[in-house]
């Protein structure tokens, strides 16, 4: 690679503070493709930022494992939806078990 090209590429690289500003959006898949690529390049070379990415990724993973919706409630709500399609909405106030499944 020519020295000019190397210098140009180097000047476009993000530093740690720039990465810090966009890191959370990057982790959430909310940054644009160009920014994501630049963050990924920096993180690959910078041990400190690489470690920060790893920590925040693990936090996200831990949170994602946090809750699963109650299966019985989910089942009742799906039943409710199917009852709506079968007979339409009631005219009166919302009732908890319109399908009459006794839940």
């Amino acid at each position, binding site marked *: 690679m020519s020295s000019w090209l190397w210098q140009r590429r180097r000047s476009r690289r993000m530093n*740690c503070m720039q990465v810090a500003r966009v890191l*959370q*959006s990057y982790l959430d898949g909310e940054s644009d493709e160009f920014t994501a690529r630049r963050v990924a390049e920096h993180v690959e070379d910078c*041990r*400190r930022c690489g470690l920060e990415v790893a920590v925040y990724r693990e936090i996200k993973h831990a949170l994602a494992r946090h809750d699963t919706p*109650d299966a019985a409630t989910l089942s009742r709500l799906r039943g409710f939806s199917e009852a*709506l399609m079968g007979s339409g909405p009631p005219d009166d106030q919302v009732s908890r078990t319109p399908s009459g499944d006794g839940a």
Partner: protein
Amino acid sequence: MDTGDRGARDKAFAQYVLPEVEVLLRVAMTLTAQVADAEDLVQDTLLRAYRAVDRFDGEHPRAWLLTIMRRAEMNRHRRRRPHLLDDPDTDLDRLASTPAGPDAGPEEIVVGEAFDEVVDAALADLPDKHRQVVRLVDIDGLSYAEAAGLLDVPEGTVMSRLHRARKRIRARLTAAGLAPKRGVL
């Protein structure tokens, strides 16, 4: 409503709404924190969605449903809790700053059961508005735009609450010796 209208409405409901029931329940749990309230809120949302689905253009059904849920939740609040919660953002600016020494701590992450327990405890200790955003994005899987629409706040507010909340979680992990102290982030 004649049979044709009913058929088209049922078809649209099945196509756009049924696949989102689980997400709606997750989000409702985040908004209400009580299973019974969450179930009521989802039922209310489903009813409103069913009544409106024939006017829905088919674009971004999740965002459409979350808007309906937000309105339903606002009605619930008007009925039950007319006061607003204090905004914890200002205090959090002070609390969220992580004291990061230049050369402290082992540079490794200790992932395991203890890691998850510290994250859960830190999540529980967050101010309501910050915990809510973390749950919506990291647990319920909403985008920033979807969370912002649901909460009726700018996307920037979602981002800043999320970032501060994660910094606090990270600080708790550091204090527990499960994450390195160094970091500019």
